[in-house]
């Protein structure tokens, strides 16, 4: 009986009144803009204008025939998979470490999770300082231990810029993975390990046969969520490299911004944004599918 939902006279009014503000905001600022962006993408919006004559799918065709779009798409994939792969491995490792008990674990935990709380602009500033060609500590340290013999141009060379951006991204966002995995690790019933020990399982076997299978559903969901979020991350790249040098770190969101607010071609920008969203929507669909399957398994 406990979850029987009572409906009394007046409940409907209350429900509608309380939901109206939320619904209005969501419709006006998510649903309507989504429609508008499609409309904009079908228009030839002139420089600095907000709308223009209808041109059908011309902007899409332009985008698909444009080298910049394909470069940005490739860059996006490098950025997303590079970041997420490292984040997941690092996140799992740190989560397993923090799951052990050791002295001052609380402090270690706080420091390891801190980057996630740090505002992006802060992460960018401190890493830019560390990446600096001349005064940056990173170059100095690497030369000191003999890994490199002359300063690397972290952010300003086409070969290193993407690596640098990924390093900062991983540093900033791997704690999310740690948090997600630590939660599930702590929920593994201790008896499972005790039973395994009595059955003669080695530490590695315990990890392989108990920990990993238990963690796997959450691991996959987390990886997918990180993929979706990393996909449309904008400011971390924009603030580190602005998409450069040349277009070495221009991902799709950066390209949308450049088309829309640097070149002021809103129609073309909208077309690219929609193409970006289509790829993203596929990922989101997979996410919901997996989530539903995980929920129904419970």
């Amino acid at each position: 009986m406990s979850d029987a939902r009572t409906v009394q006279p007046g409940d409907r009014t209350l429900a509608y009144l309380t939901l109206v503000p939320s619904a209005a905001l969501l419709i006006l600022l998510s649903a309507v803009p989504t429609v508008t962006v499609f409309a904009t993408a079908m228009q030839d919006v002139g420089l600095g204008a907000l709308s223009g004559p209808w041109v059908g799918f011309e902007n899409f065709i332009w985008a698909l025939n444009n080298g910049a779009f394909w470069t940005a798409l490739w860059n996006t994939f490098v950025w997303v998979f590079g970041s997420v792969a490292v984040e997941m491995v690092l996140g799992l490792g740190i989560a397993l470490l923090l799951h052990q008990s050791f002295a001052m674990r609380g402090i270690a935990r706080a420091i390891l999770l801190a980057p996630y709380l740090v505002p992006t602009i802060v992460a960018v500033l401190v890493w830019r300082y560390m990446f600096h060609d001349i005064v940056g500590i990173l170059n100095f340290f690497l030369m000191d231990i003999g890994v490199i013999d002359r300063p690397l141009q972290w952010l300003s060379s086409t070969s290193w810029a993407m690596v640098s951006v990924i390093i900062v991204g991983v540093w900033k966002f791997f704690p999310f993975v740690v948090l997600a995995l630590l939660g599930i690790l702590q929920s593994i019933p201790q008896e499972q390990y005790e039973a395994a020990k009595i059955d003669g399982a080695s530490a590695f076997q315990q990890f392989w046969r108990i920990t990993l299978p238990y963690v796997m559903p959450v691991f996959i969901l987390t990886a997918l969520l990180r993929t979706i979020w990393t996909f449309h991350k904008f400011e971390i790249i924009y603030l580190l490299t602005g998409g450069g040098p040349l277009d070495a770190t221009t991902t799709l969101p950066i390209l949308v911004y450049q088309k829309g607010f640097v070149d002021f071609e809103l129609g073309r920008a909208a077309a690219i944004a929609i193409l970006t969203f289509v790829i993203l929507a596929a990922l989101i669909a997979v996410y919901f599918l997996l989530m539903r399957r995980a929920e129904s398994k419970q």
Partner: protein
Amino acid sequence: MTVTTDTHIPARAEPRRHRQIDDVHYLANRVMIYLLALTAVTVVGFPLFWMVISSFKPGSELYVSPPTFLPNEWTLNNYRDLFVQTNFPVYFMNSLFVAGTSTALSLVIGGIGAYSLSRFNFFGIGSFARVALICYMLPEVLIVLPLYIYVIQLGLADTLIALIIANTAFTLPLALWFMRSYYNAIPMSLEESAMVDGCTRLGAMLRVTVPLAVPGLVSVGVFSFNHAWNEFLFALVFTSSESKKVLPLGLATWIGQDNIYSWGMLLAGAVLITLPVMAFYLLVQKKLVVGLSEGGAKGE
């Protein structure tokens, strides 16, 4: 499988003491854990350490190669310059206003909306929650184009109001979704009891459910504040004049202007942006723990 081979233990001798540390495997294991933990903490923590340390270095030391590790001379000049020579205080107040207002809005709007999502299940309410979650997944770069058009058309360009509305709309789906599951965990019988005791539905909600949901509201508040404090793209597109810049945008425009804004100032600014977030988090962490233990007593 350690089987003792010593069969000569006298029947009534002192009991033998066993220490785990005597086991070589155990010892090696512990050493490994500490080494790994130390490495991880050093690598991950270093940038933040470096930021704080460098913000106390005088200008001359920030540009020397090789860099000094600890400052030869500790100074607060960078912080002073930040307030005297730049618009940092303006940015800070703008950020505080935008983040505070949008947090309050998403708490009120999301807090009451989520109540109905949790307690009622008639026409369309279930799918409303799902639509909200999809909205949360919409990429900012997709939304920012049409919002830019609206902002211009409504004459809201270069105002903080535009930022507040956009930030609220962006955190609202999460507020709704999170609070709904929080309300779901609060037993219905508490509200029913309050209604039998003489409350209306609204009274029961305000007197019983909302006070119990405070830890959840606090989490949502922290999240919303953090989001608005961090938000960059909307600020970049919607605002331009110095008096309307928020912190991330303000500091971003300083990057690369070494002759006017020194690294010292930038890093001092970075420290000051981080402080409220950390303070907020520490403050709230305690409250969250209390809230959780309180929630543990529910239903009994």
